[in-house]
């Protein structure tokens, strides 16, 4: 599933933005690959690398 922006409130503006994003969404979907299954862990910064906590050596 390709990512898209979600808004906390479905205002008229956000609905309009969602409609306007459809062509671009399709463009992105063509190039996006499925993500790996995401572990429910936080992010850490090690030596400047922004990593998931679970992938530390």
């Amino acid at each position: 599933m390709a990512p898209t922006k979600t808004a906390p409130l479905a205002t008229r503006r956000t609905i309009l933005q969602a409609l306007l994003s459809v062509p671009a969404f399709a463009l992105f979907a063509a190039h996006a690959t499925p993500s790996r299954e995401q572990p429910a862990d936080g992010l850490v910064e090690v030596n400047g690398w922004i990593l998931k906590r679970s992938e530390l050596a």
Partner: protein
Amino acid sequence: MIFENFEGFSASGFKPKVILIGSGPAGVTIARKLAAAGIPAAIFEAGQADFTEESQDFYKGTTVGDYYFDLDVARLRYFGGCSNHWAGWCRVMDAIDFEPKAWAPDTGWPIRRTDIEPYLNEVHDILDLVPFRDDVWISDDIRWVQLIKSPAVRFNEKYRAELEESKNIALVLDTYVTRLEGDGTKVTGAHVWSGGKDQGIATADFYIPCTGGLENSRLLLWSNEQSNGGVVPHAEALGKYWMEHPQFQGGNALMNDPDQFEMDAVSEAFFSPSIEAMQREQILNFGIRFIKMPYHGAKWLMAELACVAPDTAEWVSGGLGGNLRCAAQLMMGWEQAPRADNFVALSATEKDALGIPRIELHWKKSELEHRTLLQGLRLFGKTLAEKDYGRVRVEDWVLNNEPYPNDQELAGYHHMGGTRMGDDLSKSIVDRNQQVHGMANLYVGGSSVFTTSGQCNPTTTIVALSCRLGDHLAKRINQSAMAQ
């Protein structure tokens, strides 16, 4: 009509309604709009048809503060101005760039993006652009944005024939407006130097300096000083709130799939933040230029990642197919905070060949900008990790808040502010129509009117604002003519 110098122009008998100073994208665009409305306009260009060292010498100046380019190589003083060396990168400033931001003082334009949107079709024709695509959200924080690499229109090439044939536009080369004369309510004339001598004062109903984001301030500062405040009566902000787009490589990235994002012809893609992320992190707008790295860089980066996260390094390398195409440099360019202590001043000691003070530019990056650089890279890294698109490494000098390197791009050669647009007379020089506060017949064109800089290259927005100014002035002049 194109004249080689002011004498030829004077002999022609051409009577301009508007004098534009400078033949770059702003000056030419405004003149074309006026001409299309039947209004005669003269463009006084200080340089010649082509580059000369003698003309360029007038642009020498000094910078106080952060390391910056030599001022005489950062712009061009001949027909076409900076369009003669720009790279052609185009994007209109975002709607959020025009909005005030509570966490960044003195932000917020008196106009909104919707005020320039009606002119974007014209801008596409002028700059030979393909249509822009919408931004693509890759997370709540980050959008994948488009920056069109256009053919880089050279205005002296594209519009030379049109100007030569025009009955309503007189382009006058070798004509240096040394200063404007004013009485505190209106400009009364422009002092002109041409053909190696003083040519006296040229007059018109309206005057529009379009000499660039440094020189507009210089011209108005000098004019105001010589006229005892008669050219810019509300001058508190004159020369101030000058801005650039700092640009540095702040990090690297490894991507699992090198084709994750569609790259342009030179293997680059661009990313910017959401307004919510900017607000949460208390930062300004930025653009991350994602540049694919050569093999040796990718190999080194992969080895580094393997030290701290071997499984992740293995996972990323699995997506490479052995060719290591997926490493990238992250070149960060960002919006500089508008600050009164970044300013253009007249040098007390250095003068050009005609005795006019050269520019002394005071420019420093602030703490807010370092935060934008660091937190922006972190936002991008967080998105790439959470979505498993790849991993980001932030450079040590950024993490440790060390001095900015002097051997990188430094900035975009984008000169903005100095005569900024606003409603507050103490913090702006022109109003929402680019008319100088308190002056009946003086407008300013170009990026010196930018209230804030946004993060994108300025030429597209300059041309859009110039179309709008041309329209505004044409309507004003024609309505005035009908009323008489």
